[in-house]
């Protein structure tokens, strides 16, 4: 028995250690965002210092972060809503008619490296005058979110019993009527998962915005990346900016963690 209890103790110590390691970068980011440059540069008192929110006020006053937040939000929101408009019916049809070939096309969209279509996009969007517009960014981000939306929703629709649709049909519903009025409300947990994945993927996206965004549509990842192009890195402001980007996502994920788990594991575990 004593042996067992000691093993349990070791297990708890290991769990605590793993938790500390995985949370540390977040803690470090928040600590550094509350320090001034001199405090960050000094290695004497790492954890004991007088916190100040000066970095945050600086980020908003000097670097126009409100605009970047709005840009990121518009693109993430638009690409998610449009992704749902395209993806929900497609997922339903793939699930109902067992169109597994389409499923594979979607899989390919998930797998192809984004960079292999960046050059044509850049050329075409330039010709159409769409570089540095929300349109180009939204379209490109939809491509990241849509495969996840369809993927997650196929298994949601497959999980619904066929009788539901049948009884709606008996009551005089058309197929499309049954889809909109009966089935869609029932898969709303799946829709929440899919929307969150799509939103987060767009919010975090870097490469597409690096090429397609300009001064008017710069999203948060680009804005924070630009901090390190200055000759001396303003670490405090950079960390404050990093907190501003990650905090909304972290809070949403904590509140809706159940949905996030199924979103992330989708595609690897049988749903």
């Amino acid at each position, binding site marked *: 028995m004593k042996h067992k209890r000691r093993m349990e103790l070791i297990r*708890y110590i290991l769990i605590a250690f793993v938790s500390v390691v*995985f949370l540390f970068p977040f803690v470090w980011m928040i600590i550094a965002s509350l320090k001034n440059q001199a405090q960050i540069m000094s290695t004497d008192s790492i954890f004991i210092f007088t916190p100040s929110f000066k970095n945050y006020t600086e980020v908003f006053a000097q670097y126009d972060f409100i605009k970047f937040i709005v840009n990121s939000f518009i693109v993430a929101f638009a690409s998610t809503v449009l992704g749902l408009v*395209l993806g929900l019916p497609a997922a339903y049809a793939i699930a109902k008619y067992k169109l597994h070939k389409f499923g594979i096309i979607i899989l390919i969209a998930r797998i192809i490296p984004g*960079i292999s279509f960046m*050059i044509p*996009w*850049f050329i075409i969007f330039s010709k159409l005058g769409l570089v540095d517009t929300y349109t180009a960014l939204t379209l490109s981000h939809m491509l990241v979110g849509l495969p996840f939306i369809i993927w997650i929703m196929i298994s949601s629709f497959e999980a619904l019993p066929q009788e539901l649709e049948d009884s709606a049909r008996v009551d005089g519903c058309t197929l499309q009527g049954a889809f909109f009025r009966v089935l869609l409300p029932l898969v709303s947990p799946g829709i929440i998962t899919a929307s969150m994945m799509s939103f987060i993927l767009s919010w975090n996206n870097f490469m597409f915005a690096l090429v397609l965004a300009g001064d008017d549509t710069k999203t948060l990842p680009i804005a924070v990346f630009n901090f390190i192009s200055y000759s001396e890195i303003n670490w405090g402001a950079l*960390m404050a900016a990093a907190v501003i980007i990650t905090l909304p996502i*972290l809070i949403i*994920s904590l509140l809706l963690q159940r949905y996030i788990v199924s979103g992330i594991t989708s595609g690897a575990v049988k749903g």
Partner: protein
Amino acid sequence: MNIIQLWIEKHLKYIFTLPSVLFVLIMIVFPVGYTAYLSFFDWSMSSVSPPKWVFLDNFKKIFFDDPRFWPAFFRTFYFTILAVVTQTVLGVAIALLFFRNFKGSNLVKTLFLLPMVSTPVAIGLVWLLIFEPSIGFANQFLGYFGIDPQLWIASPKQALPAIAMVDTWQWTPMITLITLAGLSQLPNENYEAAAVDGANAWQIFWKITLPLMAPTIFAAVLLRSIDAVKHFDLIYAMTQGGPGYATETLNIYGFANGFQYFKLGYTSAILMVFFMIVLIMSCLILIFRKKTEVTL
């Protein structure tokens, strides 16, 4: 029901799938075809000199006369193997650690999700500060154990492993999550039989848990490998391929050629090679998927 509704209902299959399929065709298939077409040209996106047909010259140059291509190629796989192997071993180990319930397990598992959802660029820059040779916490931490400070990201040798470490920090939770989901579905009988036979925990893991879990873990590994081969955000945010070309993977090299040097024809050829590599990997996945019956 009127005639329009009937028509819609009859063709619902196509009406519902067509928008998505068209979108994918326009946004992926056509551009990839265009990239393939451009790969036979020499073109620097200038209006003065139009694209010049050079047929396979770009590919010849890539394979035989480009000092940066092969190093980038091997670096891509070095990074992928390093990152994916580390996160798989750690991820499975942590899943076993977390599997039986413990006090606060919900909280720990929830917090464990956070690295995966956080913005790679932001996280990359946080790690840049941690790895900073003179003020970063990484060297201070080593100092506690009397280990000499390292250069980390600033060293050509350590930069790529350091980035792989950040990737590991971010994606180990995914392996853990998938493994935990798999573990909870394992049948109990095998364990009871093993317990009756007096097997110890180590034997049970190697003889029962691991073989049963192999398909699940394998699916996770393949997904992670494809993402690691394509990896861009962390590398570009932390080093942009430097110091020198020490962290330049194929994706970074393609990006630099295309959007810094604007050699669009040559870049297209590089991207087609890269595209083929990822495609071959994906085909392997589809083959394995049939064998292991894992849904991707």
